[in-house]
């Protein structure tokens, strides 16, 4: 989230789309209800079904799965047409006025942006750039011997960008935006999404009413979850929302922002600490083979400011060298020195896609021989269950760390595998009993970026072990083997710092201290005169250096465990401003700021747009930014310096146009149909699907279409009463929702002669799912381009192991037997929502 959970209580207007917080985040949803109760805030819900969130909304629009970009594009068009724009904000805090290069073209009828190579199915993104003083293109780096030639690097952004504050220049971002979304008329929105025109206009009028007649006081928020991310255009869906919020001047405002509701309780922590192949902790970019040394890597990943000459840009990612060196010092300690390039050679160079679906595809093709699966039920949670089971059958070994036997740890017993076939499976499966959440301490980082320490409530039972103990013991054994038997390149293992008091079961408090970082030498902050002694914890990332004198496991977490102690343990509920800031409860990144980009909550003079929600402001007497929240800005930058609020962008301003390598599929989002779609793309029929989405191909990757008989649109989702595949083992949850079901409309059920409670078989080109029908008024048939289209929905929480399953009460099928292995080209998230099926009685 750019904002936070409690901050939602400050809002005047909520658009909840691609998310169902009442059901999946009931505790956080309290704040949305508070906003309604205490501020008469309005709530608009747009969803393929009428959910429990919709039941308390002021306005509900039912939309066809995977058409969110079309709806949001319609909102952008409406905002521009009806002058509901935050004018000063748009001109000064976004790149709306920037001029774009002449050779950039919009998709229009072609459906692809300039630079698309049909054969390679990828873009040359160099035209997606601003006009300005572009340097001559750099020569491609020399290929390393024995390696494939390095890809031509992208040109840089121009240092000085041309701009037009009248927004009249036809090549300025604003005019291109206007032209691009002019196609997203209310009529088009109705044809594509199925939302009737008058309903769409009602929603658009209501949501943008916060900027009616130029009023800047009100704030609107957009709240979303995996209903937006689980598509082949997922990333661009969120982009469209971000652009809309920039147009409306809502980012940085209390009660505003673009707010992702994370799923798992520590998924934010997992992404912050880079549990993902293309990041290093703190969202640093991983080195690739073309980075021949540390300097080349740093040069590639450290941006330079790119902006109008008269403006200022903090460009905080310019400090990348400090973050990178400190990270390497944390990992390799004394073994990382200036002389050996800070142990840069020890880091793996990421040469291709190693995302989740790609790994299982590699296992399916015999490239990945074994897998450690910790608390991750891949067979059930990944797309195309059958392919994942077939992949496991081919693996040499599988280690499952879990608290219950699950579909992955019993994959050889999945329905359809005969006794004969079982004998042929050669995979060795190790099942490690792990600890449950109440038996572990450590921090959870929530959607609001708050790190909150929790203590273990119970001891670990029996032979179960903590995750860190298992990882530590594997590492120590591996290190011993490398010491004994040497190997191809033992140094990255042998030289890794592992200075914990108990090496085989590291204390997570010690790990957090390591993540926070410390200084190796005496140091002083010139501005505040604060002094640190060698070995002391650093108070924040501003203390990080690129000379090897500091170490830090994750720069955005610097400040969480200082000499004052473990700040994530704080529980002071005080909130003097009433804005829900709670400065001394836990610790949020970055630097305990609660609302990101909060300088944008003030006008050009540094005065808050809304006097009743004062977050930060410019204090003329003290000549610095102060406030009820920590200013997310350079504290002493005078308003007249015109420094942009979006300090993590090289431009310093919000990106309405996302240049160069920011996104794989376009600097502006455009609507693409999902991989399996009931219609062609009405916006540009020549390019129906996302041209750069990855669609996996194999004997187990089959795709269906309407002419194959798959004419019903299907989505998958989660219920309040269950948590993924864990709670089917818990009698309390099983009591609340005992059996799997498929939700369908009254009309479709009556047409097919299906009654509520009757068993149905849902099948896609990949597999089938059998469950009872729930016939409901909450999903209505839709008119898509004048044709009746039915949608159904399937909650995912069942499989072939659990209380009901073990008693033979279910058909033992998984919902993801139906979904396709087609992934978003930026985040690689699979398309769990929006594929085609057929339904029949079972």
């Amino acid at each position, binding site marked *: 989230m750019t904002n936070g959970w409690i901050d939602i209580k400050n809002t005047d207007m909520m658009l909840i789309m691609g998310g169902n917080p009442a059901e999946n985040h009931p505790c956080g949803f309290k704040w949305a209800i508070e906003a309604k*109760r205490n501020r008469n805030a309005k709530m608009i819900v747009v969803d393929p079904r009428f959910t429990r969130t919709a039941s308390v909304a002021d306005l509900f629009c039912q939309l066809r799965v995977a058409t969110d970009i079309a709806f949001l594009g319609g909102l952008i068009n409406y905002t521009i047409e009806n002058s509901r724009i935050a004018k000063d904000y748009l001109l000064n805090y976004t790149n709306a006025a920037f001029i774009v290069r002449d050779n950039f073209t919009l998709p229009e009828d072609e459906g692809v942006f300039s630079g698309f190579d049909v054969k390679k199915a990828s873009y040359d993104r160099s035209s997606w750039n601003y006009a300005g003083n572009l340097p001559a293109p750099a020569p491609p780096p020399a290929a390393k011997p024995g390696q494939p030639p390095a890809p031509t690097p992208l040109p840089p952004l121009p240092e000085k960008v041309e701009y037009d504050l009248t927004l009249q220049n036809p090549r300025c971002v604003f005019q291109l935006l206007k032209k691009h979304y002019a196609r997203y008329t209310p009529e088009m929105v109705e044809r594509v999404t199925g939302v009737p025109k008058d309903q769409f206009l009602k929603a658009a009028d209501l949501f943008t009413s916060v900027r009616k007649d130029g009023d800047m006081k009100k704030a609107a928020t957009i709240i979303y979850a995996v209903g937006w991310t689980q598509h082949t255009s997922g990333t661009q869906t969120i982009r469209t929302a971000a652009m809309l919020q920039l147009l409306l001047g809502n980012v940085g405002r209390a009660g505003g922002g673009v707010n992702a509701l994370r799923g798992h309780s520590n998924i934010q922590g997992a992404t912050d600490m880079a549990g993902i192949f293309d990041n290093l902790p703190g969202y640093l970019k991983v080195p690739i083979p073309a980075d021949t040394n540390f300097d080349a890597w740093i040069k590639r990943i450290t941006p330079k400011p790119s902006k109008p000459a008269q403006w200022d840009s903090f460009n905080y990612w310019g400090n990348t060298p400090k973050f990178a060196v400190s990270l390497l010092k944390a990992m390799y300690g004394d073994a990382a020195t200036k002389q050996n390039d800070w142990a840069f050679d020890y880091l793996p160079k990421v040469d291709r896609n190693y995302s989740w679906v790609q790994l299982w595809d590699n296992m399916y093709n015999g490239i990945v021989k074994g897998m450690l699966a910790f608390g991750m039920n891949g067979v059930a949670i990944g797309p195309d269950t059958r392919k994942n089971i077939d992949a496991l059958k081919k693996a040499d070994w599988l280690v499952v760390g879990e608290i219950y036997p699950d579909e992955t740890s019993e994959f050889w017993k999945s329905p359809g595998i005969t006794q004969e076939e079982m004998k042929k499976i050669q995979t060795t499966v190790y099942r490690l009993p792990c600890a449950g959440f109440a038996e572990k301490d450590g921090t959870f980082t929530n959607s609001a970026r708050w790190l909150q320490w929790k203590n273990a409530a119970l001891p670990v039972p029996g032979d179960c072990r903590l995750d860190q103990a298992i990882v530590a013991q594997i590492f120590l054994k591996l290190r011993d083997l490398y010491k004994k038997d040497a190997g191809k390149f033992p140094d990255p293992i042998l030289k890794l710092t592992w200075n914990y008091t108990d090496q085989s079961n590291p204390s997570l408090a010690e790990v957090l201290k390591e993540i926070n970082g410390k200084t190796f030498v005496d140091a002083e902050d010139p501005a505040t005169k604060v002094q640190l002694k060698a070995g002391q914890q650093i108070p924040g990332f501003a203390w990080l250096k690129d000379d090897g004198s500091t170490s830090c496991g994750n720069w955005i977490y610097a400040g969480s465990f200082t000499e004052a102690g473990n700040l994530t343990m704080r529980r002071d509920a005080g909130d003097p401003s009433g804005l829900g800031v709670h400065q001394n409860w836990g610790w949020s990144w970055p630097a305990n700021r609660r609302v990101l980009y909060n300088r944008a909550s003030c006008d050009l003079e540094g005065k808050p747009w809304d006097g009743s929600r004062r977050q930060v402001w410019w204090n003329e007497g003290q000549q610095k930014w102060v406030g009820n929240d920590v200013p997310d800005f350079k504290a002493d930058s005078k308003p007249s310096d015109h420094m942009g609020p979006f300090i993590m962008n090289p431009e310093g301003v919000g990106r309405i146009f996302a240049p160069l390598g920011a996104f794989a599929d376009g600097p502006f989002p455009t609507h693409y149909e999902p991989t399996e779609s009931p219609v062609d793309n009405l916006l540009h029929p020549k390019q129906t699907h996302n041209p750069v989405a990855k669609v996996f191909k194999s004997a187990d990757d089959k795709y269906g279409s309407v002419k194959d008989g798959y004419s019903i649109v299907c989505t998958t989702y989660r219920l*309040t009463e269950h948590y993924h595949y864990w709670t089917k083992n818990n009698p309390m949850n099983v009591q609340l*929702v005992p059996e799997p079901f498929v939700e369908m409309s009254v009309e479709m059920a009556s047409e097919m002669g299906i009654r509520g409670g009757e068993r149905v078989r849902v099948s896609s080109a990949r597999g089938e799912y059998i469950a009872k029908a729930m016939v409901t008024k909450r999903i209505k048939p839709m008119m898509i381009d004048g044709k009746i289209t039915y949608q159904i929905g399937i909650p995912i929480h069942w499989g072939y192991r659990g209380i009901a399953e073990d008693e033979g009460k279910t058909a033992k099928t998984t919902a993801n037997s139906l979904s396709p292995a087609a992934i978003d080209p930026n985040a690689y998230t699979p398309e769990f929502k929006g594929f085609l099926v057929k339904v029949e009685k079972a």
Partner: protein
Amino acid sequence: MSQATLRVQKISGHAGTVPGQDTQREPTVCKLIDTTTCIGCKACEVACMEWNDLPFSETVFGNTYQTMPETRWNYWNLILFNEHEREDGSLMWLMRKNQCMHCAEPGCLAACPADGAIVQYTNGIVDFQQANCIGCGYCITGCPFDIPKMNPKTHRVFKCTLCTDRVSENLEPACIKSCPTGCLHFGTKEDMLFEANRRAKQLREHSNFPNAGVYDPRGVGGTGVIYVLHDASQPEIYGGLPANPHVPWSVKLWKGPLKWLGNVAMIGGLIGLFVHYLRYGPKAREEEDIAPGGTKT
């Protein structure tokens, strides 16, 4: 179960007065349920089960999100889900937390013939004392909300206790504590009515619910559980909430006039018998009535 601060003001089937009756006044407690902010998460169902150590129930799919069709002897709190189409065609998914209403004039208590099986405390809570229950089931007939349920094995009847054990220790009921959205409130009747009316007014003025109102039915003297409804003119759409609940006439008659009629009839009959005896003496047998050989002359 600590009931240290609970004082009884009414006892079912009790002969004579209740000790200490009407000697003190105290504000009655009230649970406010705002159906317009309920998200049907069932935290309250689970909290009730856990606090009261109720065993798990066998449930089956019923073409609804509702956990089971109605409350059970071992499931006292149930969210009722109802899909309702408004006049303008828009859909509402109504969720109403269903449990004992703790009526000021409880029909169950009026109907119960067993001394002390049902009591009402001065704070308004109506409580079943299973030790005194004779399993007749009259309370089930007497309740206009169809709440009390009998355990078929032990023939004892059960329902929500408004967490007397928590309330008597100054804690809010378990369901209130667990509600994540703050849809449930707990306090004195006066305070809860004030809040309910404020919320209903807000709904009428700002949320396009012109018929929003508070459900606090007069027919049972008002209830210890009150609802804010989007549409107070149609309580039935909330899973059969009765528009005008009252103690059934059969119970009122039987426990009221009919009881006295019966007493009068009984005493009157005995007096009549005695008077008749005084006046006419014992039944005399006449010699002429029976002749030797059989026939009467």
